[in-house]
Structures are given as structure tokens and as C-alpha cells.
């Protein structure tokens, strides 16, 4: 009998390389995210941060290295992978709500089809989630009838309906009008406080300061800095991070 292992990290990436044709978008990325941690990934556009996020549920396959979610290596495309993805919530920049389904049906689809949750139980959970993100009164509407902020909150509810172990956010507020950014960030901040493991790719420095346990700074496909928000914003170590912060914080 071996001694029980300590809890595996929720996300573990080791020696991950990813190419788009000749372009080397992820260079030997190593990252461990323990359970309950909120990680914000920052970096200039084209630094590979979105790609990093998308490799974790294998929306982007990698060329070499290993990725594990909750101790389980990512399987190849198929039923196994679908099962693992069900435990990994994802929120997209462009919401990607199912255009032909009402908001509540968007939230119900995966729990009933994938998890085979009985419909009354699923509906109860869906209503609760829509209340939590503040759009219970929009449940019967179609995505196109909602504002961007409401759509993104619905998308968060849809991901949470699967009771995921970890949530990935791929620039969740980048497609929103400025006045709607806060309502989405508020939902995310609450989620972070409740102990959800989160990996958030964003440009929202306020969110990084307030809600993150850890900041990862990426440039040219590499993780350049890995520190706490306070450390990163007050005393960045690398010149690239200094340069990046100088550009965004001066105005």
C-alpha cells in the first residue's frame, strides 16, 4: 500500500509546446494551479494567453508536453474527452450561447443531455443559477434579445450548470460595452470568493488586483512572470512586464 497522494493540482501543464504552422505560440509552458486558486493570465495580444486557456480542455490540441486536469491526463478526442470537458467550465469572449434556444434551455441542455439530470431537478438548478447571475427574469428570452452583459452572465450560468471543478474564462469581458463589464466581473468575483478554481484570461487589471490569488504574465508564448497581484503590479521583475504595465496603466 502506498501512502495516499496529496490532492493533485486542478490544472497541471508540463513542457507544453504548441505551434500554429511555423508560429510557436506556446513555448515549454509549465503551470500548476492548485484547487481553489484564482489565476489571472495577463499579457499583450498575441502572447498565447488565449491559446493557453483553450489547450486546457483541448479545444486546441498541443504538439508536445502533458496537461492534466484534477490528476487526469487529457484523453484524445472522443467520449473520454467529452466526460472530462463536462467537468471543466468555459466562458468565451463571444459568449457562444446557443442562438436557437432560450436562455433557460441554454442552461438546461448540457445537464440533461450529458449528465442525464432529471428535467425538474435540472430546471430547479438552472433557475437558481440564473437568479444568482441576476437574469432570472430573462429566462424565456432568446440570446439575441439580451444585452452583451446579460448574455455573458447567462453563459457563466450555463457553464456552472455542469457543476464544474474548474472554470476557464477566455477574455470574458473583451467583447462587452464598457458599462456592462462590471456586472460580469461582479459575478466572477463572487464565484472566486466562493472558492471556485478559476483561470481567467483578461485585460481587466481591476479584477486581477481584487480577485486574483496569482498573476501569470505571458509574452511571446512564454510565462514570463508568476507572482501575486500585489507583487506584479507594484514591483514587476521583468522589463517586458514593466513595459506592458507602463502602457496600460499610464492612462
Amino acid at each position, binding site marked *: 500500500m502506498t501512502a495516499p497522494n496529496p490532492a493533485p493540482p486542478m490544472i497541471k501543464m508540463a513542457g507544453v509546446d504548441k505551434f500554429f504552422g511555423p508560429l510557436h505560440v506556446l513555448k515549454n509552458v509549465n503551470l500548476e494551479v492548485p484547487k481553489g486558486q484564482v489565476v489571472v493570465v495577463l499579457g499583450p495580444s498575441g502572447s498565447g494567453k488565449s491559446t493557453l486557456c483553450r489547450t486546457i480542455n483541448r479545444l486546441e490540441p498541443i504538439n508536445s508536453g502533458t496537461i492534466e486536469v484534477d490528476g487526469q491526463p487529457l484523453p484524445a478526442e472522443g467520449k473520454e474527452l467529452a466526460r472530462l*470537458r463536462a467537468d471543466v467550465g468555459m466562458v468565451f469572449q463571444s459568449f457562444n450561447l446557443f442562438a*436557437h434556444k432560450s436562455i433557460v434551455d441554454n442552461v438546461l441542455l448540457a445537464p440533461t443531455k450529458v449528465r442525464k439530470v432529471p428535467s425538474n431537478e435540472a430546471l430547479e438548478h438552472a433557475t437558481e443559477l440564473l437568479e444568482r447571475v441576476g437574469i432570472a427574469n430573462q429566462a424565456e428570452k432568446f440570446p439575441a434579445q439580451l444585452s452583451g452583459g446579460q448574455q455573458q452572465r447567462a453563459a457563466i450560468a450555463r457553464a456552472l450548470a455542469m457543476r464544474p471543478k474548474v472554470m476557464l474564462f477566455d477574455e470574458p469581458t473583451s467583447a462587452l460595452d464598457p458599462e456592462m463589464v462590471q456586472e460580469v466581473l461582479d459575478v466572477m468575483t463572487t464565484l472566486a470568493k466562493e472558492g471556485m478554481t478559476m483561470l481567467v484570461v483578461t485585460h481587466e487589471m481591476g479584477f486581477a488586483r481584487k480577485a486574483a490569488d496569482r498573476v501569470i504574465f505571458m509574452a511571446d508564448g512564454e510565462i514570463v512572470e508568476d507572482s501575486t497581484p500585489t507583487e506584479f503590479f507594484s514591483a514587476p521583475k521583468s522589463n517586458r512586464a514593466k513595459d506592458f504595465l507602463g502602457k496600460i496603466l499610464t492612462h
Partner: protein
Amino acid sequence: MSVLTNFSSLFLSAFGTTLKLFAFSAVGSLILGTFLAMLRVSPVPVFRAAATTYVGMLRNTPLTLVFFFFTFAYPLLKILKLDPDPTAIVALTLYTSAFVCEVVRSGINTVPVGQAEASRALGLTFSQMLASVVLPQALRAVVPPLVSTMIALLKNTTVAAGFSVQDAGSISYSLSEAGADTLVGLGWVAFFFVLLVIPLTLLQRSLEKRWSVAR
């Protein structure tokens, strides 16, 4: 008018046969065509190649030749003996499904890739994603060309008249055998086809209206 009244039972039974050919072939080709479209977007290369070959062959062959094959060549294979009416339904279904496949596939291409990504991220399998997310949206996008394909199918049923089927296309033969005025008879045939197409057009309009909200 006398042609119509004197031969009313001929018109009735012939158009009855036409409707039967149409109904069975429409349902068959919509199902088979959608299935073929799913194969054509499948991640499995063998499925894609098989469906592409099927569509290439059936779409590039004149319908009459498909009928010839099933009337004269297929019986030589001695698999299952088919009467003229089922033979016509098989030929029309296989031929039309190739067109339905291409219409549905073009519909699938209109569905933004994010819809499929969101489905996959939620843990839906490929077939669940197609059935619950992609196909419903694809079909909404292709109602007009799909109805056009069905209208073409309705008119294509008349080819069966050349292969021992007593459908609307055979009315002129029966009339000329009986010495009646074929030209007037054909006029009536054309008129009834126009009548039959109207419900399809109305169906198209109401589907487009109902589904316009979601887009």
C-alpha cells in the same frame, strides 16, 4: 373541362400515386440527406470520403439513369424484388438525398464555429452537438433551398411514368390511348402541379417566419 370530368378517376388515382411517391421520397431523402451531411462533416475521414463519393455519383447522374439502374440492373442482383412504385421511391429518394445533403451541409457551414466549441466545452459528444445545436440551426438557415429541392422532387416524380408507374406523368399516355385531347389533359396536369406546390410554398413562408426570431 370534359377531359377532366370524363377521366376524373384517372386523374384522381394518378395524382394519388404522385403524392404517394412524393411523400415517401421526401421523408426518405430528408432523413438520408441529413445523415449524409452529418457524415460529410464527420471527423472520421472514411465517413467523409464515403458520403462525398455518394453525393458525387448521384448528383452527377441523370435521374432517368438512376431509374434505369433500379428497373433493369438492380433486379439482376437478385437481392429483393421491387414493384414499380417502390422502385420509383427508392430511385427518387437516393437521387434527391444527394441534393438534400449538399443543402444541409451548406446550412451547417453557416453555423458559427463558436456554437460547436461551446457544445464541446460543455461535454457534448459529436453526435449530441450535431443533433442538439448545429443541425437545428443549420436547418433553420436553409429552409428556402430545402423547399426548392422538395418542389423539384415533386416534379421529378413524373419521370417514374416512363418506368411502369401510373402517376400524374402517365396521364397523357392514358388519354391518348383513349383518344381524348392530350393537350387539354396536360394543361390540367400542369394546373394540379401548381396547386400541389402552393402548400409547400406556404410551409416555407411559415417556417421562415417562425424561426426568424431566434437569429
